[in-house]
Structures are given as C-alpha cells and as structure tokens.
C-alpha cells in the first residue's frame, strides 16, 4: 500500500515536472517580450536629412538671381536659357529723385516691418526709438522703389532734397522679409551680432539651412554669420556715418544679407 502510494507520488511528480518543461517556450517568449518592450535601440539605417541649399529658400534664391542678373546686365548678357535664369533685370532707383514718394500706408508698412525686427530681437529698441524720433521730428519723407525681382527699397531722408538718409531698407515684397537695413542716428547704441544675427536668421526662416556659423578667419569674424549650405552671409555692423552730408557726427547700423562664397570672397 505504502509502496503504491510512493509510486503514485513519483509518477505525479514526473508529470508535474513535464508540464513546466513543456511550457518552456511560453516562459521564454514572456521573458524576451518583457525585455524587448520599452527598450530603445539605435535604428539600423537612420534617416539622413536632406541638405538644403540656398536655392531651396526663396529669399536666398531671389538674392542669388538678383546678383546673377545684375552681373549679366553688366556684361550685356541679358538673356540666358542655359542655367534656368532668364529674362531681364531692372534694378529699382536708389536715389530719391528716381523713387516714388511713400504715402502714409507705405510709411506704416515700413514701421511695421521695423517693429517686426525689433520684436524678433534683431533690431535693438534704442536704435529704432531714436530713428523714429528723428523721423517724427523732421517729418522725414520716405521714398520707395521696386526692382524687377520684387525687392522693395524704402529710403527715409531728413527732408526733401536732403542728402542725410536716416533709413535705407530692402524688403522682399512677397515675404516681407528684410534683406538689408541701414540706419543713421545721432547716437550709437549697443547691438550684439551674436544675438541679432541668429534672431534675424530665424525671422527670415533660414534656420533650416542648419549650418549658420561665424566665418572665422575672415573679415566678418566679429560681425557675420555664414551658411555654407546656403552660400549666404549675414552681417551686422555699426560705426561712424561718413556718408551723410550732415554737419553733425552720426552713427550707423547696417544689417546685410546676401550671397557669399567663402572660398572666393573670403
């Protein structure tokens, strides 16, 4: 009896051992699943982002085209169909006599664009306040012209027939992005290119180029940002205004965006 009971126990034990052994695959996958879920791994072939060029950005493409067409105009090659640039370029007038007098709406547009620069951290408020004060003080007239690529030039002088230009700004009329700004004021105010230029890049939505860096070893090391992908240069400079015919000593602030090839120009 006792022997049979022991035998029964042993057989039951054997059966009880077989069941978990047979279920090894279930345990195996439960463990591997638990180890797999939630764990991060590096992708085998990570996606490589597209590398944009200047031509991928409307603003830079327009600037490049302007330079190209202006160069062709200079060389008398006004038409071309080989490289996709074709047509005739007419630059807008750069002196008040050839420009159109800006009405109140245009002046308001000018102020709005400049305020955008201030709000975007590009133009220091002090500079704008001082210029705005002089414009209001002198009731300075504003003139504008547009070239055949749609660049709008706005110039504000101290008075009619005056050679003292308070503000010279170029704006892409389609996007409203500023590509050049020149301000003349009685006092110089601080502007940090390391802050102003990245803010301008972002405001002009050119940060997608992704490689804006200080052009070390060039004349623009302290005042420029260069994008090799976009072949473009942004500069920010201040100094004494030697261009104005005013008897007073004036200061200027200059922001420039344009095509630039480091190897050639630098």
């Amino acid at each position, binding site marked *: 009896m006792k022997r049979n009971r022991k035998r029964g126990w042993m057989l039951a034990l054997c059966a009880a051992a077989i069941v978990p052994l*047979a279920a090894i695959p279930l345990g195996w*996958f439960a463990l591997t699943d638990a180890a797999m879920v939630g764990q991060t*791994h*590096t992708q085998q072939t990570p*996606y490589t982002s597209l590398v944009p060029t200047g*031509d991928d950005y409307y603003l830079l493409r327009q600037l490049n085209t302007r330079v190209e067409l202006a160069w062709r105009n200079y060389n008398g090659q006004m038409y071309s169909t080989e490289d996709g640039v074709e047509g005739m370029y007419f630059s807008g007038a750069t002196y008040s006599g050839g420009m159109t007098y800006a009405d109140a709406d245009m002046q308001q547009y000018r102020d709005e664009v400049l305020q955008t620069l201030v709000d975007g951290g590009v133009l220091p408020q002090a500079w704008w306040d001082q210029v705005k004060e002089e414009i209001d003080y002198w009731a300075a007239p504003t003139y504008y012209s547009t070239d055949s690529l749609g660049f709008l030039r706005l110039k504000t002088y101290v008075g009619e027939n005056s050679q003292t230009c308070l503000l010279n700004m170029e704006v892409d009329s*389609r996007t409203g992005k500023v590509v050049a700004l020149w301000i003349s004021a009685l006092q110089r105010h601080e502007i940090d290119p390391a802050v102003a230029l990245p803010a301008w890049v972002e405001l002009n939505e050119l940060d997608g180029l*992704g490689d804006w860096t200080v052009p070390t070893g060039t004349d623009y090391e302290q005042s420029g940002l260069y994008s090799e992908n976009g072949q473009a240069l942004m500069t920010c400079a201040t100094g004494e205004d030697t261009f104005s015919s005013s008897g007073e000593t004036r200061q200027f602030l200059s922001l420039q965006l344009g095509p630039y090839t480091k190897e050639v120009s630098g």
Partner: protein
Amino acid sequence: MRFSEKLVCTILLVVVTFFALGGSALLYGDFQDRLSSLADQEQNRHDMLCYTLENEILSLHRQGEAVTESGLGSFCADLLEPAEGGTAQLAALYHTDRQMGQGAVYSCLPAVWGASMLPGSGQQAILRSGDSLWRVYCTDLLDGWTLYSAYDLSEAFAARSRSLQRFLLLEAAVVIGAAAAAAIFSRKLIRPLALLNQASRRIAAGDYALRTNVRTDDEIGQLSESFDSMAAAVQDKVAALELSVQQREDFMGAFTHELKTPMTGILGYADLLRSMQPDPAEQREAAGAIYHEAHRLESLSGKLLQLLHLDEEELALGPVALDRAVTMAVKAARPALEQNGHARVETLSTGLWVQGDTDLLCDLVLNLITNAAKAGPGGTITVSAEQAGRTVLLRVRDQGCGIPADQLARVTEPFYMVDKSRARKQGGSGLGLALCSRIAQAHGGTLTIDSAPGKGTAVTVTLQAVSKPEEGGAS
C-alpha cells in the same frame, strides 16, 4: 516505482526538455527574423515619411511661403490617412519649441505613451498600447521638426502565437509518442531482468535446475550468463550437500549396524558363559568368538580414529622410499595372508621415492594387500609401482573374485561391503578402501579401481614423485 517507469519518466523528461528548448530557440530565431524583416520595411516607410515632410518644408521655403504648424499638421493628416487594407501606422510631428506635453502639430499616437517612453532621434522602441505592440521610430527633421512614426507589430506577434500553438500541439504529440515508445522499449529492455527475477524466486523455492537462458549481446546477457552459472554452482553445491547428508546418514546407519553386529555376538556368547555351564570346548569356542568380535571392534575403532585423524589434521609430508613402505606393509600383512589361504605377494623393487608419510603409505598398502588377500584366498597379489612424469602409480593387483561394475563407485564409501557376510567372517569392517581413498587424497593423489568379476581387481594409487634425497634426509 518500477524500473521501467523510472526509465520512461527519465526519457520523457529529457525529450521534453530538449524539444522545448530547441523549439523555443527555433521559434525565437524565426520571430527575430520576422521582426528584422518588418523593421526594414518600417524603416523604409519611416524614411519615406521623413523625406516627404522635409521635401514639403523645403518646397514651402522655395515658394517663399511660411511653414506654419497648421499647414504642416494638415499635410501630415493627409499624408497619414490610412490606406485601404494597409498596415496600421501612427505618427506624430512635434516642433522643438514645443514641449512634448504641450501637444503636437499632428499626433495620432496613443496618449499612454508619455514623453519618457518615446525614443530619441535616430532610435526605435517597441511600445505597448492596449493589446497591441508598436514599433516607434523617431527622427529629427529640418527646421527643428521631430517626426515619430509607429508601426503595428500585432500581426507578427499573432503569427508567433499561432506558431507557438502549433508547436505546443506538436510537443504534446511528441510527448505522447515518446511515452509510448519509451514504455515499449523499456518493457522490452526490462523483460530479461523480469525473467531473472522470476528465475531467482523459483530457484529460491527449490527449482535448482531452472536457467534463464537470456541470450543477448549486452550486459543483461552477461548477467544472465553469470546468473545461470551461479544457479549451476548452487545446484551442484546443493547436490553435493545432499549427497554428503546422504553419505553421513548412510555412514551413521552402517556404523551403528557394524557396532551392533559384533556386540550382539559378544553379548550372546557372554550370556551363554554366564547363564549356562558349557563344556570346555564350547567355552573355548565362545571365548574365541568373543575375542574375534572384540578384535573386530578394536580394528573398527582404530580405523575410524585414523579416518577422523586424517580429516582433522594437516599432514607433514616428506620424501618416502616406496620400496620400504611396501616391505613394511607386506611384513605387517603376513598374519592376514596366512589367514586367507596363505596368499602370496609379489613385490617389484622400484627404487622410487614419493612425497608422503611412511606410516600412512604403509597402512595404505597393508589395507590394499589385506583386501586383495580376502578377495582371492590362496592367490597371488602383485604390488608394483611405476613413474609417469611427476606421478608415481602404485598398483596392487589380485586374482580374486572381483567387484561388480555397478558397485565399483561405492566401495570406497565407509562400511560399504560388497559381500557383507563374507567380509564379516573375514573380520572386515568396510572401512579399508575408504581409508585408502582418504590417505590417497591426503597425499594429493587419487585411488582408482579396475575390476572384473571373477578375474580380479587392480587398485591404482597416484602419488607425487620426488627425487631421492641425499643421505640423512630420507624417512
């Protein structure tokens, strides 16, 4: 637990363990291959999404249009609209400026996936949402956008579950099959052992002639062979014991009878002398009879003592000159020879030396000569010896009545007499040949009898030959 059951259990445990481990490895390998293959497809789809979005962003830049969150969100929604019958896909688009918790430009990822669970750029992770599992990919795009895309792995896991179910069914079938095969195999393997067990029980019960006769070319066959040898040895031993017991019983019976016979005569004649007044002739006859029977009893007791002495003590043997022992025996046998019709003894001088005890060899030859004299009164008894290699053959031959062939085997038994009445008349005790046989054995030799009724008997004793020792060493 029976041995066969132990065997079956062990085989099953081993089979199940290795089958389960092997199957797990196989299924796991297949599953990993499938996941890897899916990962390639998913990576391609994710890359395509990334490319399409970046292309859209650059396209907007080219056109000089603002890349707005709402515009890109709408583009994503159109792009990720699930195709009919296509693989389920989830995605989310975030901008770097926005925190994950603040919402995405576009997202159809499950809310349970917190920012901490999602992989970083260039990474992937498998995440659970309800009952389904998704593989999530993350890549940083142009302009600070981050794209997450997730692909449903439910089908891969479901396929694995189906494979696992099939494997478990197969495993169950294998276990059942292995159990049946192991049971049959172990039963066949155990069968000889069961036979051995059964045979040992029957042999223990007294069936000593039983043999297993398992003829297999393995350890069990060898065990069976050894068992059969052991059974044969046991049978022989039992037979020997039985024979010994029988001989002892016969000995006791014969001994009692041989004691009783002379005592009856002695008592009868003593009673005659005590209760009657016999004449002198009758008195002499009665006294002679009493003397004869008493002498026979003394002879009987002497030989019995000699036999017992031989059984109990180890002999110290040495070189013995066989001629000397024979001469002593012939001299001692003279009264018996005269009593039996003046039988004549011829002895051949051999000069042989044997390893033995002089007195015992003398007794041996004396007994053989006496027996020979009793067998053929008046005849010639020849005592000879010859050397054959390292053995000396001592032979005593008579020309007496001989011994029937069916009794030859028993004449060396104690108290066995071929013709009891004649033997007793001649003063025989039935111990002579038994004593001779025992002396021969004590010398490491044998005693053989060749006899033919009416023609005589030749008794041959084998002794160990030795070379003649140097002077002073002989006994």
